[in-house]
């Protein structure tokens, strides 16, 4: 059974990975077989300089979901490369690194630093960052998305993945813009802008006032977006949004995703990606499939 997949020249042993910001538990767990079986690991988004993150409360639970506003707490790219990256590489599975920045120059500078660090399978651009000129997120503008992708592609030795926000009128348009600018893959989707209110205090339940909704609650919308986008682009999609079980992952693959990432559910069941991988293999066996490509995009229209 062939379950390996490719993004540009990078090969992944299987299609199951983790969404950025949901993996990076205590490093002592990196040795676990449930981690070593992943198709790739993707640590939390890194920025050029260290960020301390948002004030509490940073998360709240909602029906079948959660809202978060962590604020990309991270040690900055230099410390990430020095302290965290070596441990991630030691796991022995492909490493993808998620980066975010406030300008195209900073994105390019980070890509250069990652070139120098060596040994990555891909870099993912977290484009859910403010576009200072337009007062919207980069990933909410086809033009801004294309500009960042183009700039990073010009310097990066690794395949470049554009991670898109679902908070747009037409996500297909943004995906096409990213592809035209040279992106090697699309990650979709990031969290949905959301809020929850404590009615007793009449305050937001999130310190940052609003946050991003994730978890099983968003899955049907994410599946629809992947299914709409996949036939319109040639590059692979990493599908994510509320994946908790094998069936959830299968929905994304059938909708046209080449890889699937478990996000929020890692917080509930850290073994979920492992269980999903076993489940996908069992499904393929039952349906007498010998290659994962028979499954990808197999939706009947």
């Amino acid at each position, binding site marked *: 059974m062939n379950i390996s997949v490719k993004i540009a020249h990078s090969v992944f042993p299987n299609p199951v990975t983790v969404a950025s*910001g*949901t*993996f*990076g*538990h*205590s490093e002592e*767990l990196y040795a*676990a*077989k*449930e*981690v070593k079986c992943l198709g790739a690991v993707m640590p*939390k988004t890194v920025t050029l300089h260290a960020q*301390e*993150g948002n*004030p*509490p*409360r*940073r*998360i*709240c*639970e*909602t*029906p*079948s*979901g*959660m809202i*978060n506003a*962590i604020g990309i*707490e991270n040690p900055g790219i230099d410390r990430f490369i020095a302290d965290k990256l070596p441990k991630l590489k030691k796991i022995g599975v492909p490493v993808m690194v998620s980066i975010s920045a406030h300008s195209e120059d900073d994105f390019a500078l980070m890509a250069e630093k990652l070139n120098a660090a060596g040994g990555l399978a891909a870099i993912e651009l977290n484009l859910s960052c403010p576009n200072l000129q337009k007062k919207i997120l980069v990933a909410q503008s086809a033009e801004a998305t294309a500009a960042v992708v183009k700039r990073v592609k010009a310097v990066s030795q690794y395949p470049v993945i554009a991670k898109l926000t679902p908070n747009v009128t037409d996500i297909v348009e943004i995906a096409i813009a990213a592809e035209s600018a040279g992106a090697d893959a699309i990650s979709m989707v990031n969290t949905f802008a959301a809020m929850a209110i404590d009615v007793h205090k009449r305050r937001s339940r999130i310190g940052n006032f609003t946050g991003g909704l994730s*978890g*099983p609650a968003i899955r049907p919308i994410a599946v629809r977006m992947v299914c709409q986008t996949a036939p319109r682009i040639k590059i692979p999609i990493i599908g994510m949004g509320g994946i*908790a079980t094998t069936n959830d992952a299968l929905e994304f693959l059938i909708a046209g995703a080449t890889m699937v990432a478990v996000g*929020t559910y*890692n*917080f*509930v*069941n*850290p*073994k979920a990606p492992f269980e999903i991988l076993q489940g996908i293999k069992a499904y393929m066996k039952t349906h007498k499939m010998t290659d994962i490509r028979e499954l990808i995009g197999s939706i009947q229209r």
Partner: protein
Amino acid sequence: MKDIQQTYMVSSVAQVNATYFCLTLDAPALAKQVKPGQFIHIKVSDGFEPLFRRPFSVYRAQKGRVEIFFEPVGRGSKFLAEKKKGDTLDVLGPLGKPFTLPGKNVKQVVFIAGGIGVAPFMMFSDRLKGHKAEKILLYGGRTKAHTFAMNEFKKNGVKTFVATDDGSVGIQGRVSELFPKIDIASTTMMYACGPKPMMKAVAEFAKEKGLRGEASMEEIMACGLGACLGCSIPTTKGYRTVCHDGPVFNLEELIFS
């Protein structure tokens, strides 16, 4: 993950007074590993409601069994109250940083607890039976029904002093009114667990009197493993996760707004 994520069988669920329930797990490996102040993170239902696991301090860990106390008021703990003997639960643990054991030179150990916050101190006092220090518990609760286990503490050689909002047991007032029981002239170690205003009062008292101590903090938690950074609280070292850097922190590290 084999070691920290396990399925355990419920051996009993009992309502212990008007407010609190006790759930006992048949969990020999967990009982052996867990240290006072650490917590276990329980998936309380099979579906996505509620989504997050729920963290519980371990109340007692002995003879292959682990006990937790809870008040079934939230979306998660209500599920636990309905568990029956023989049900199984998916448990992550033990998690978090435990309390630092008092050194041999410590002459007085002071547990300061509010409501359900008393839970970790039972296990702690079990483990300190051989320690020569005087052990006292200053315990605050809303009413008599919000206090429990006084006799168990007495059996462990812990002198208990209680304050309730309505005076239904102990003195009427806040637990801070019991602070004069603390021997500020001695080598004293304080351990606190309870609501934030109580923790703040303890931290301020410790600073004023130059006493050492630790506090077990609480925050809404998702992963329990230091991955999501959702349960971070402000400390003198920057934001720190309650689940992984804590739940036990030095009193002087904590910043209360």
